[in-house]
């Protein structure tokens, strides 16, 4: 369904071969193809615009016009800029340096993968950071949501806060923090209910939970299949809670994952992890270069 960017640019530049030097207009034509490639990869339109402007400026200024393989030159510039915008070469991990219990709060839209990612992180924290973790579900909306986290806790052998029927999220959070202190827990992970950013009551509840639990990390869990809505989601969550990073789920699918670029650009926060499956060890550090290639269909 998608053509790779090489194919697209090949098409643009093939027609020009043998005509000598390229003109600025040729670069602009190439950028039109880049634009379509990014939109097909679900990069949000405002982000595409900024990106194209930045890349056009670089491409026109560079030696692209004189090079023998302008297509390759353009792709290199596009790819480099994309990697840069996705966070450069560094990968950013969790910041757990604080007085325990360090709280990690997971937020995001319905069905984005919060509960699963909570359990994946708890496992990761024990195995990679050697710390003792506990998980608590604050999801009183979705049927069997708390039971889901409990089952996952059993699967990875991680404590979960006992379920008290009828208790509301802010009270659960308070109880979780108390319980974590008493049990000398290093890291407390708070799984929250999925919420739409336009749902004022649920957004207020999320703020209240954040206020009483003072999370060290607030991670926005985002589906890599997300389309143009990515900008709205990123903006609204950023405005409401002090986000520290993003987890991009379902990277094991075949989506191009342009939402990664939108997320990074709009939240200004690093993408810390990629979810790569339903199993609880399917969590990886986020690699900007790989994702850049994927967005471009390379």
């Amino acid at each position, binding site marked *: *369904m998608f053509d790779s960017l090489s194919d697209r640019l090949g098409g643009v530049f093939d027609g020009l071969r043998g005509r000598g030097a390229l003109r600025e207009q040729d670069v602009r034509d190439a950028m039109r193809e880049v634009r379509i490639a990014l939109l097909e990869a679900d990069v949000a339109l405002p982000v595409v615009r900024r990106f194209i402007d930045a890349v056009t400026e670089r491409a026109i200024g560079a030696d692209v016009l004189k090079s023998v393989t302008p297509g390759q030159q353009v792709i290199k510039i596009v790819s480099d800029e994309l990697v840069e915008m996705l966070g450069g070469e560094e990968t950013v991990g969790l910041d757990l340096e604080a007085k325990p219990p360090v709280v990690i709060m997971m937020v995001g839209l319905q069905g984005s993968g919060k509960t699963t990612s909570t359990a994946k992180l708890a496992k990761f924290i024990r195995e990679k950071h050697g710390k003792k973790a506990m998980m608590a579900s604050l999801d009183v909306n979705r*049927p069997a949501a708390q*039971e889901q986290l409990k*089952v996952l806790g059993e699967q990875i052998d991680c404590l979960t806060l006992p379920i008290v029927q009828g208790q509301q999220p802010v009270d659960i959070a308070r109880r979780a923090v108390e319980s974590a202190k008493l049990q000398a827990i290093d890291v407390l992970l708070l799984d929250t209910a999925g919420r*739409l950013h*336009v749902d004022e009551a649920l957004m207020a509840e999320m703020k209240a939970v954040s206020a009483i639990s003072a999370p060290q990390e607030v991670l926005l869990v985002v589906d890599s299949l997300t*389309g143009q*809505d990515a900008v*709205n989601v990123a903006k609204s969550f950023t405005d409401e809670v002090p986000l520290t990073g993003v987890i991009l789920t379902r990277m094991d699918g075949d989506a*191009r994952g342009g939402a990664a670029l939108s997320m990074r650009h709009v939240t200004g926060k690093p993408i810390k992890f990629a979810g790569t499956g339903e199993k609880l060890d399917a969590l990886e550090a986020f690699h900007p270069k790989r994702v850049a290639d994927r967005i471009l269909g390379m």
Partner: protein
Amino acid sequence: VGTAKLDDTTLDDVEDALILSDLGPSAAARIRAKLSEKRFGLNITEQELKEAVAEEIAEILRPVAKPIEIVAFPRPQVILVIGVNGSGKTTTIAKLAHWFQEDDYSVMLAAGDTFRAAAIGQLATWAERIGTPIIRGPEGGDPASIVFDGVKAATAQGIDALIVDTAGRLQNKRELMDELEKIRRVLGRLNPEAPHDVVLVLDATNGQNALSQIETFKEVAGVTGLIMTKLDGTARGGVLVAAAEQFGLPIHAIGVGETIDDLRPFDPDLVARVIAGVA
């Protein structure tokens, strides 16, 4: 509010707005071209322009608007519900069941997701709330055998509609897609007409990948219709326009919330107006 001649700048704006609604660049360009062909250079107000866009979209969507009807003979009508992870299958099943109940049909649910943690508990909670029987097996059990039990029980009890939940799966997972084929085979053995409906649940917040979902699920599992969820947010679901053009599959309903009453018939004119941004 004056009129202006429809020019390239205005058309660019229309195209951008359509892209923001997730139509994707090619479908957006096609609609732009149609508008341009019909009206370029003519005087038009902003409102008229939006209405014209909505009309172009509605023309594409009207032929695919089609509710699920309970017509199977012999009963039960078997409705298999499939889709990628977290798209809203289980919740949509509860809403659909409730919808059929309101029309006085008897409904039974089958808990075919034996994989995800507490997936059975989630469906069972819904079944209890709406008062439908549910067929369930052990966690980790064989979904095909649950489905088999479901059809037998529904047949014996004279149930009108059996709705089958399945585990979420990404369309590029060969093994999981094969499992769907197996479920279909088992159903077909009990009744060659079953499953009567294979409903693919799409998440409105998903972008262009929805097209790849439709393509693969259609090929492997014989999708007969679509339901799009999560249209209560800011996502507009424009990918349905591209889907209607490419696949022509019926669109049955849309999900607009997390409660049992939050399923609506698919109204092509309304959805077209939302996508086109007509107030």
